[in-house]
């Protein structure tokens, strides 16, 4: 492989960002075009990667290796397996859509798009980095543009939301760094190569503590209860496109890190941690759904639904962590569901945030008490909203169903009680979405919104691809399952399940 395709995917947005800084700020259109083209190029490379990916092959593909700080064993090391590829596809899709959804940004658009592209570089980088230091660099890189994007272009409480997000994540990630360094020194291998460090055996008691450090870093990002309080603030205040990326991609960085780092490197600690993991995942599911039900603000409701959905990822992971040799098949199913949920939630939550943005642009409110009868006012928009809500609540035939079904099915033999409790979360999820639809879509038509146009072509361009993807991945799960399978089999084996 001569073409450094992963490097291109990661750094094309950065190049676009630098290019934007050279364009005079008056040329708003050019700036937006550069941003869109940059995200499109990266997405096209991801698509190409998808066609070239060797399915069924375990281990890393498309690896790129260069020395960076040899005296410490830090490398510029990138590579992907099926799990990273699925998230790259998600990132590629959502960054393009987010660039389109940002088209109505007029306030300081130059800075906005420069930061937006910087954010894209960080997100792609996290999913391809195989060196701990490189991983950490991208992980932290995401923070700075995100802080400004929320802080400058966000809603009324943007400053509070931005700094809260920043401090929570930074505190988590520096503790994670301590954990990473502890692994580095404990192994004594003098390398930061994740795959090499994952081969090493670590003392069991020691693993427990390091898992704790890593857990805090990752759990803040997911976010897992009780580290979740930054999320509703950040999601609600962020501009639409940024909420899409936050929910669609950024949350996955946390769960991805469990897949890539914590589980394979510290499998013994993972087994010990599984019950705690499961309980917290369960809290996410039930508590997230109940809090979502209590919201008046449409966007806040969608934000809490993310907490609910990420709970399934955690529960699926917990089941695989606890499984042991007796439950290999169940563990495999649960972890597949967890990985699938990352993808499915990216699609559905991205769609819902886009839809909330569309209606907010028109009515300038997200208060469900002030929205009603929108089936009549915005029929096209309303259809998409209903679809998005069904996708999110796990209607069979749509992508979310596959994920949650796999998780619950796989986790059942391992955590019977938890799964039974978690199914109550399913009911609550369905309930708050149906209540939302009743309040927002049905009821009395409001005259003040009468003159407002329905979703325009640009907005439809952002919604239609997601709709199609949600259906495709709802009826043909094998596309994604086959892609991720070898990596997941390997992970389950590593966790002692085979």
């Amino acid at each position: 492989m001569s073409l450094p395709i992963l490097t291109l995917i990661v750094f094309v947005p950065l190049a676009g960002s630098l290019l934007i800084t050279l364009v005079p700020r008056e040329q708003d259109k050019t700036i937006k075009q550069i941003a869109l083209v940059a995200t499109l190029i990266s997405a096209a490379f991801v698509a190409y990667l998808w066609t070239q990916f060797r399915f069924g092959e375990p281990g890393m593909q498309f690896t790129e290796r260069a020395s960076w700080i040899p005296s410490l064993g830090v490398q510029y090391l990138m590579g992907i397996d099926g799990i990273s590829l699925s998230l790259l596809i998600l990132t590629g899709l959502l960054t393009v859509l987010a660039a389109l959804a940002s088209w109505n940004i007029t306030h300081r658009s130059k800075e906005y798009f420069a930061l937006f592209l910087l954010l894209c570089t960080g997100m792609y980088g996290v999913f391809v980095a195989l060196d701990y230091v490189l991983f950490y660099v991208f992980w932290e890189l995401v923070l700075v543009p995100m802080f400004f994007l929320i802080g400058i272009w966000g809603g009324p409480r943007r400053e509070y939301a931005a700094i809260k997000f920043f401090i929570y994540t930074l505190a988590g990630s520096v503790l994670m760094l301590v954990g990473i360094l502890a692994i580095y020194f404990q192994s004594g291998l003098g390398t930061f190569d994740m795959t090499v460090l994952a081969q090493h055996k670590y003392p069991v008691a020691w693993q427990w503590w390091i898992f704790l450090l890593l857990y805090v870093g990752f759990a803040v990002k997911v976010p897992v209860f009780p580290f979740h309080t930054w999320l509703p603030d950040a999601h609600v205040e962020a501009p639409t496109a940024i909420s899409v990326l936050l929910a669609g991609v950024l949350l996955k960085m946390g769960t991805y890190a469990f897949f890539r780092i914590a589980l394979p490197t510290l499998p013994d600690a993972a087994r010990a941690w599984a019950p705690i993991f499961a309980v917290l995942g369960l809290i996410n599911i039930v508590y997230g759904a109940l809090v979502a039900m209590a919201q008046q603000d449409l966007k806040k409701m969608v934000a809490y639904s993310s907490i609910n959905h990420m709970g399934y990822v955690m529960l699926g992971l917990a089941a695989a962590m606890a499984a042991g040799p007796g439950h290999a098949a169940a563990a495999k199913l649960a972890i597949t569901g967890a990985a699938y949920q990352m993808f499915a939630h990216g699609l559905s939550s991205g769609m819902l945030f886009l839809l909330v943005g569309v209606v907010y642009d028109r009515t300038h409110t997200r208060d469900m008490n002030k929205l009603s009868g929108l089936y009549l006012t915005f029929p096209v928009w309303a259809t998409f909203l209903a679809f998005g809500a069904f996708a999110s609540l796990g209607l069979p035939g749509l992508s979310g169903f596959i994920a949650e079904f796999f998780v619950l099915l796989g986790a059942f033999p391992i955590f019977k009680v938890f799964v039974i409790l978690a199914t109550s979360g399913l009911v609550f999820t369905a309930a708050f979405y149906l209540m939302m639809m009743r309040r927002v879509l049905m009821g009395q038509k409001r005259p003040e919104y009468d003159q407002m146009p329905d979703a325009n072509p640009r907005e439809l361009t952002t919604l239609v691809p997601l709709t199609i993807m949600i259906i495709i991945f709802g009826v043909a799960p094998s596309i994604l399952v086959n892609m991720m399978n070898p990596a997941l089999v390997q992970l389950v084996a590593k966790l002692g399940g085979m």
Partner: protein
Amino acid sequence: MDYLYILPELILVAVALVLLVASAVVDKGRQGFIPAVTAAGFLAAMVAVYPAIGQQSSIFGRMVAVDGFAQFFKVIFLAVGILVTLASAGYMAKQETSGGEYYVLLMFAVTGMIIMASSTDLLAIWLGLELVSMASYVLAGYRREDPKSNEAAIKYFLMGAIASAALLFGLSLLYGFTGTTNLLDLTNYEQKAMSGSAVLRVAMFFLVAGFGFKVALVPFHMWAPDAYEGAPTPVTAFFSIGPKAAGLAALIRIFPIGLAGLAGHWSILFAILAAVSMTVGNLTALGQKNIKRMMAYSSIAQIGYITIGLAVSSARSIEAIMYYVLAYVFINAGLFAMIILLDERGIGQKIEDYAGLSQRAPMAAAAMVVFFVALIGIPFTSGFFAKFFIFTSAVESGFMWLAILLAVNSAISVGYYYGVVRAMYLEAPKDPSPVKVPPSLGAVLLTGALATLAIGIFSEPFLRLIGLVSPVR
């Protein structure tokens, strides 16, 4: 031959003396050439470091070392001299009391710093320290008409004098024990044999306290916020990088090398000072409204992070300190260029005065973000690897608690750096007129930003250099 190796010092002193005479003889109105000559003097001294590169010897009766470590710090200090001179020119020209003495004092202070880093005798280090301190006292009070500047000078002088006495007392105790003040002899001295003595503990305590004062470690930091706030802003810039870097260089010469055998006595002292300094520095910085005071506490916290390296005192941690100093000098020089700019333009020193700066001076504000990001320790800047290496060394040597405390403190520090960034980017300017950046300050900003990014991304060559010149293996 010995004199060839101290050519940089000789050039500095010679230029300083010439300028001293010139500033007395030449009309006040025609002294515009002095900053340029000062910068040229620093540059010439930097070139004069060249003959010593690659040499390894001890000169002047083994008082002065000719080694990579000394050259490394000489170059850094001379770069500090150039940056501070560039940053001072505009500001000082506007002061009523302006005169060539300012630059003369600056050159003497840098000479003192060089002596501190290259001496291997406790008395010579002390002399260097006093040279830096004397010049610094006067520099702090340079704005004679300003009561705050006077207060800064007096506080700094009184505290500094006590610290010098404490240090000297510690040295005398050490001398009484060992019969030598030469670090090379001390290294060979059978230190383990005497490590039980209580008097030696007292000596260690006074040595650490004396240096603690000079580099402003909590609880010896009281003078710093006042001195930082009251001193003319370019002098504050100098204080935040110059004397601190020199103090650290001397500390490395004295403790991990000279008194390695007594690590059991002083390691814990440094660990405590590091822990307290970073925590108190960061927490106090949170409440500051004046950016110079904020930066005073920020630098107390930063020195706290660096001091972890002294507590750990391994080959890796000493390299980490050197890397940190290298990174920190450029970060703070750049940052202060900005503070000087706003002060010079009469915009102010309060954090609220930075409102809307991203629209008034976009490039300068962006550079400032780079510096803050570096001080927090976020990747793609030198500050990340600086902290990372300190971290690494602490985890490696089992100082896990210090590493975790450093992690927590990094998160706390976001709070106050954020205040300035928020003002610059999220608040509307009171006065939207653009702020022009004069070329000399622009040069400092640009150098600082480029160095911060370059050292942060391509850290390997710098690490290799530091590995080469590090005195601890």
